[in-house]
Structure formats: structure tokens, C-alpha cells
């Protein structure tokens, strides 16, 4: 659908340690908030699906008491629906139980209804009904490497899912385990970590076991992906067969975020943190870094960001929208959310004093009812 000037609205979803906040804006400058939704439950994942002529917000919800679940709303959070038997539940023969949904990834426009999810314990799921029911990906679940995958500090999870335009190639990243690739739409999987360091292991260059924090695909170059690793920032130009460092020019190679432009070749954003043992912005100076040449050079972006910031930014606490110019959004574990409507050149604070921000997603929406404030 072609949006007319003035018809655009923007939706920002902020998942935190203690609930979900939603905001809409006509211009990405003034935001109207609702929330908290799911108060006292953590929201580790949000997906916004604007396909099929409606805006569906899907959330991974996890209560310390009552466990994890997935809910969705088609009215910007005025009402929520949760399938009776759960959207994601492990089949009985696995003997496993869902701990947390880390990722909800609506597939491409050409595959409406298809939604992927990544979860803890390490697993990938696929829905064909718009995220109401998911099926466990058996190929990855039964992978012979499974018993050797480990847990990062936050748990053992599949947290990144990238599907190529024709759906045949799927890349998954897990912590810890690294990158796995499927060339048959998700039926079978192979580790694809050559060049990515696992300095914390006896063999720093294993086939798998890396702690890849986030991967994202280049919008315009087939076979090119970017990775923010547990120390290390990488690019692959051969679909994951080999990875090369693109950390030169960054103030630090640690961090969690990796974002890519929805349309433009070679454009990606990271939010560096100083180090594994010092998880703060370098020198306490918060900045986003953007590359426009596939990681060969980086531009520091800190206009509108505070002088001092000592909180980290988690892997899914950042997002881009699809507007022109692209909006960039991220939140801190200190509960502040920043937004840029000019690809990161200038940020402004859109929320503060929230609980730890676990995930942020933004989208251009149209024709949706205004939220009840």
C-alpha cells in the first residue's frame, strides 16, 4: 500500500523487565504512550507485523511466577489474545519446557502469516498463522551439536533469525553456539562460524561455540550479513562461509546490537560497549556507530545523547523502522529510550525511567486506531 504524506504513523514498542510500553507518533517527534502492559512480567521479545493489512503486535511475555507465553494484539494493545494451549510449547517427546522467547521475527512481505521465533532453551520455531501457533524446528533441535551448545550470561537461546528473500536460506545465531545456516528453508543446518573468534574457549577458532550476539542481513547484497560478536564485529560476503572483521574504526568491538538498513546496501548500526568485563559505553560516552560502506569505515553518532551513560544496550533493545529516512531507536538497561528520525544523525529521548529495556521494535503503520491513553 502506498502511503500518502501525512498518513504515516509510527509505532514504537518497548519491552522491559517489568512490562511493555507502546507509543505512537505522527511524526517520530511527539510520542503518545500506553502502558505498562503486562505489568511485572518481562518482555524479552516483540515483533510488529504490518503485513496482511493490519498491525499485529506479538510479544514474548515471561513472568517469574507464571512462566513464559506469547500474546498478540491487533488493536495496538487495547486487547491481547493468548492461545489457550500456548503459541510456543515444546512437544512432549522433547522433554523440554519453554523458558523465554527471545525473538519474534515476521518473515518477508511475500510470505504473509509466516513468523519465526527464537527461544530458550535454544530452539527455532515457525508459525504460518501470523504468530498464533508455532512449530518447533526439528532440524535444529535434533542437531548433533546441541549437547555442546552452552549458555551465555543471559541464558541459552536462539536470538537472531534472518531469512533471505526467497525463503530458501535461513541464518540463526545463538548464544552460545554461533551462527547456523540452512540452505533448505530450515530443514537442515550447518555451523557457519569460520573467522569468528571464540577467544574464551581453548580453541579460539572452533567450528561452533561462538557467542555471536546478533546478526543482521544486508538489505541489498545477497549473501552479505553482519555480526556483532562477544568481542568482534564481522561481515560475511559469502553467505556465512567466511567472516572477516569490520571492527576497525570502532572504539570497541564488544556490544550486542547489530542493525541494518531496510533497503540500502552497506548500511548498518552498532552500539559499542567497552568490553566483556566492562559493559558500559567506552569512557561512559554513549554513541551509535553507523557504516555506509559495509563496515570499511564507521561514523560516530552521538548528537542528542547524554554526556554520561553507564548502562548497556541489549541485543534486541534496538530497532530501525522502514521510513525514509530510516528511524533508529534504542533503549538502555537504565530505562531510557532514544529515537532518531534521520538514520542516527540526531537522537532525542523519548522515554526515561522505565525498567531495564530488553527489546525495542519500531514500524510504520497506517490505518490503525489511536491508542487509548
Amino acid at each position, binding site marked *: 500500500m502506498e502511503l500518502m504524506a501525512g498518513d504515516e504513523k509510527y509505532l514504537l514498542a518497548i519491552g522491559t523487565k517489568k512490562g511493555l510500553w507502546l507509543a505512537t507518533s505522527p511524526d517520530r517527534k511527539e510520542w503518545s504512550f500506553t502502558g505498562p502492559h503486562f505489568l511485572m512480567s518481562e518482555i524479552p521479545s516483540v515483533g510488529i507485523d504490518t503485513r496482511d493489512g493490519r498491525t499485529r503486535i506479538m510479544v514474548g511475555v515471561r513472568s517469574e*511466577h507464571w512462566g513464559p507465553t506469547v500474546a498478540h494484539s491487533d488493536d495496538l494493545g487495547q486487547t491481547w489474545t*493468548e492461545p489457550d*494451549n500456548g503459541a510456543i*510449547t*515444546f512437544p*512432549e517427546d522433547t522433554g523440554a*519446557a*519453554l523458558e523465554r522467547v527471545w525473538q519474534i521475527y515476521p518473515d518477508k512481505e511475500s510470505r504473509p502469516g509466516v513468523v519465526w521465533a527464537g527461544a530458550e532453551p535454544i530452539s527455532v520455531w515457525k508459525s504460518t498463522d501470523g504468530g498464533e501457533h508455532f512449530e518447533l524446528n526439528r532440524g535444529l533441535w535434533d542437531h548433533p551439536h546441541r549437547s555442546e551448545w552452552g549458555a551465555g550470561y543471559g541464558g541459552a537461546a536462539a536470538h537472531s533469525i534472518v531469512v533471505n528473500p526467497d525463503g530458501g536460506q535461513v541464518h540463526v545465531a545463538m548464544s552460545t553456539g554461533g551462527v547456523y545456516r540452512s540452505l533448505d528453508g530450515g530443514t537442515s543446518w550447518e555451523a557457519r562460524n569460520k573467522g569468528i573468534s571464540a577467544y574464551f574457549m581453548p580453541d579460539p577458532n572452533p567450528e561452533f561455540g561462538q557467542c555471536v550476539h546478533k546478526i543482521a542481513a544486508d538489505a541489498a547484497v545477497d549473501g552479505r550479513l553482519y555480526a556483532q560478536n562477544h568481542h568482534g564485529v564481522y561481515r560475511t560476503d559469502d553467505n556465512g562461509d567466511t567472516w572477516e572483521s569490520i571492527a576497525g574504526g570502532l572504539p570497541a568491538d564488544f556490544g550486542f546490537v547489530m542493525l541494518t538498513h531496510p533497503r540500502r546496501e552497506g548500511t548498518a548500526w552498532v552500539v559499542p560497549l567497552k568490553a566483556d568485563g566492562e559493559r558500559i559505553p567506552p569512557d561512559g560516552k554513549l554513541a551509535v556507530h553507523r557504516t555506509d560502506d559495509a563496515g570499511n569505515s564507521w561514523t560516530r553518532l552521538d548528537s542528542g545523547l547524554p554526556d554520561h551513560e553507564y548502562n548497556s544496550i541489549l541485543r534486541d533493545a534496538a530497532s530501525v523502522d522502514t521510513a525514509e529516512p530510516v528511524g533508529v531507536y534504542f533503549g538502555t538497561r537504565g530505562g531510557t529510550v532514544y529515537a532518531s528520525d534521520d538514520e542516527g544523525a540526531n537522537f532525542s529521548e523519548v522515554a526515561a525511567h522505565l525498567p531495564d529495556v530488553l527489546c525495542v521494535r519500531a514500524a510504520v503503520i497506517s490505518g490503525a486506531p489511536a491508542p487509548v491513553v
Partner: protein
Amino acid sequence: MASEVIEIVLPSVLQPLAAGNAVLAAAVEGPETVGTVLDSLSADYPVLARRLRDETGALRRFVNIYVDGSEVRRLDGLETPVRGGQEILIIQSVAGG
């Protein structure tokens, strides 16, 4: 055999998942276990049942269940016997921050 009733007392936060009821009545015709009584909730209140136990059937870590005042983890867990006239009380742990 005439049926008897086991009352299941819910914390307020779970009552919306039980059609607003604070107490549910499970009709039984003989000895049951806490687990089988919880099983019987699944048909009418599946979301409530999922809040109490995960998909393996295990009681969630911070959900406490008492039978006539005794916490089932100190008894036989979900295999703890329960019979008509007894009360199953569900309370969330003091946890979180």
C-alpha cells in the same frame, strides 16, 4: 459413588484466568492427586493451567500449592493425595524485585 468437592483457592492475580472465580470446585469420586486435580483444570481453564505448570507437567518454581495448609513440595509434590472436602490453595512465592 457420590461425588465430593475439592476446593481450589486462587490468588487474585490468577482469577481472571478462571472466569473471575476466586475458588474453583473440582468434583471427585475418590482419591485424587494434586496433579490430577490440576489436570482437570486444563479443559476449562487451559491458560490458568499453563501458569501453574510447564509443558512437562512440572510445577513452576515460584508457584506454591498447599493441601489443607501443607505445602506439597514437603509432601509428595504433585503426587500428593487429595480427597473430597480438602482445600488446594495456590499462592505465588515471594520472589523478584
